[in-house]
């Protein structure tokens, strides 16, 4: 409640929050809101020459090269993007938390081995690694989500590692340990709660990264496969046509930008609110 109140005071965060809420609602209510079925190839959705139609009263955002309603496809695409965003990022944050905590808490071989592995993963360019995995595994919605998760946990692990290292040195952990608390109790009752803000912030910021990565993979043709609409593959399907029908590229592009921007704004505001020492930085 306190967090929400602080957010309402910042215009940028409020904007982000409103857009995020709107996108989520539209995605959930897609079957109710969408004027047409996303896969329906309409006869009157193309000109007589077979070209897509620009935005009009009948087709709010125009139609695509197969005569399907762009607005409806974007609504269903929002479902794809958000599901991947939530699942991929949820898994990434969980893996990152686990590896970060373990490597920060356990000194010695296991701890440093985990951290070296994280360093190793940082040496891979995220997109290329995702491309390799997607090319090897033949993409479906869930595979794409897992690929993104496998690439995106690294940053979270790094940050959680640093925070855990700091926490382990603190006096209250020493006190707890001298009272005879076991590792499990210290990890779950004392360290994990301190990492909740980090998890929330990265759970939000990471969705922006995930949505962008999914769109990029789909744009390259190895993300979510048509006919399932995703914001990336809507652009992928019509990119060669973009000179004649720019709306088919730039409307979905604007939607991706707006969504990623909003998650970033909310995440950044959350970071400011939950961690005042970081205010006004990075």
């Amino acid at each position, binding site marked *: 409640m306190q967090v929400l109140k602080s957010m309402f005071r910042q215009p940028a965060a409020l904007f982000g929050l409103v857009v995020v809420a709107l996108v989520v609602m539209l995605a959930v209510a897609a079957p109710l809101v969408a004027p047409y079925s996303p896969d329906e190839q309409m006869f009157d959705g193309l000109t007589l020459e077979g070209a897509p139609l620009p935005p009009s009263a009948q087709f709010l955002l125009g139609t695509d090269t197969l005569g399907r309603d762009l607005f409806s496809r974007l609504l269903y695409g929002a479902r794809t993007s958000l599901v991947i965003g939530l699942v991929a990022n949820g898994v990434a944050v969980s893996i990152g938390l686990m590896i970060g905590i373990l490597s920060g808490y356990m000194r010695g071989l296991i701890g440093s081995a985990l951290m070296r592995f994280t360093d190793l993963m940082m040496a891979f360019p995220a997109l*290329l690694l995702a491309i390799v995995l997607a090319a090897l595994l033949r993409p479906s919605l869930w595979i794409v989500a897992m690929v993104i998760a496998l690439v995106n946990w690294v940053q979270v692990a790094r940050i959680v590692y640093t925070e855990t290292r700091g926490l382990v040195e603190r006096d209250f952990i020493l006190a707890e340990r001298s009272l005879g608390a076991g590792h499990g109790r210290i990890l779950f009752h004392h360290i994990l709660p301190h990492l909740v803000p980090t998890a929330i912030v990265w759970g939000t910021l990471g969705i922006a990264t995930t949505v962008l990565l999914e769109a990029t993979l789909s744009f390259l043709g190895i993300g979510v496969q048509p006919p399932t609409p995703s914001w990336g593959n809507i652009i992928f399907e019509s990119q060669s046509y973009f000179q004649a029908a720019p709306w088919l590229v730039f409307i979905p592009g604007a939607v991706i930008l707006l969504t990623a921007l909003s998650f970033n704004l909310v995440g950044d505001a959350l970071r400011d609110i939950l961690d005042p020492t970081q205010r006004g930085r990075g």
Partner: protein
Amino acid sequence: MAFLLLRRLVQTALIMLGVAAITFLLLYALPADPARMIAGRSATAQTVANIRRELGLDQPLLVQFWSYLQGLVQGDLGRSYAQKTDVGTLIAARLPATLILMAAGIFVEVLLGVFLGVVAAIRRGGFVDRLVMMASFVGVSAPQFVAALLLLYVFAVTLAWFPMSGFGSFAHVVLPALTLGILGAGWYARMVRSAMIDVLNQDYVRTARAKGLSSFRIIFRHALPNALLPVIAMIGIDIGQFMSGVVVVEAVYGWPGIGQLAWQAIQQVDIPIIMGVTLVSALAIVLGNLLADLVAPLIDPRIRAR
């Protein structure tokens, strides 16, 4: 210092070994039968068996890994499934184009980012500051392929100031470099702003002001050099992000670099090429980080003293 250097070098070598291990697993251990993928769909069982023996795929995994490493050290990145040529040769032929694009992109990115960061720091809390911060957020949130298509649409299709695609003249490099640079500049602007604000609050800057130096001299001669250090480290880290961007930008602009090579390989599921590009990019990232670590003490004596 020498010890520290040696440690970093060993670390770098170990990371590259790990990278090689992962690429090896993805290339040879994961696919059900690499020999069949190389031979193609219509190959006879005999051909497949020959290829398997030729590549040493009938050997134990560790032996295979050892010969893979030996090949890598000699620049042998394997053979392309579709093009039937050496991946190393293909990449080497396209590397110069990518390096030109990266140099141009990083130039735009750093110049724009530092400029915006300094302006925002000077006008901290003001309208310009908020505008720059907002713009940097937009840059960070924009999908690269959309930005690339937008620049292409406005400046190549509509205004026809620059060629649509291709390679060979200065005009060709402008749009791809701007795409990479404008979007990446956001991170630099945020970092320089925050570093500048820290520096501008320090005593020596106040002393310089008290001496009556012009603000221009204080900002560019006294404050900025100290705020640039994180930028150097950032360029090292940024190369990874950049390599990802290069694939997209080269695909959109038809830039004949390794990114385009990878993109074409994606269409044909030509995994050795994708893997080779990944390996070269990983090497670039690791070397970039190493270089940033080596250059930092040359610029900042405080690090040398440590």
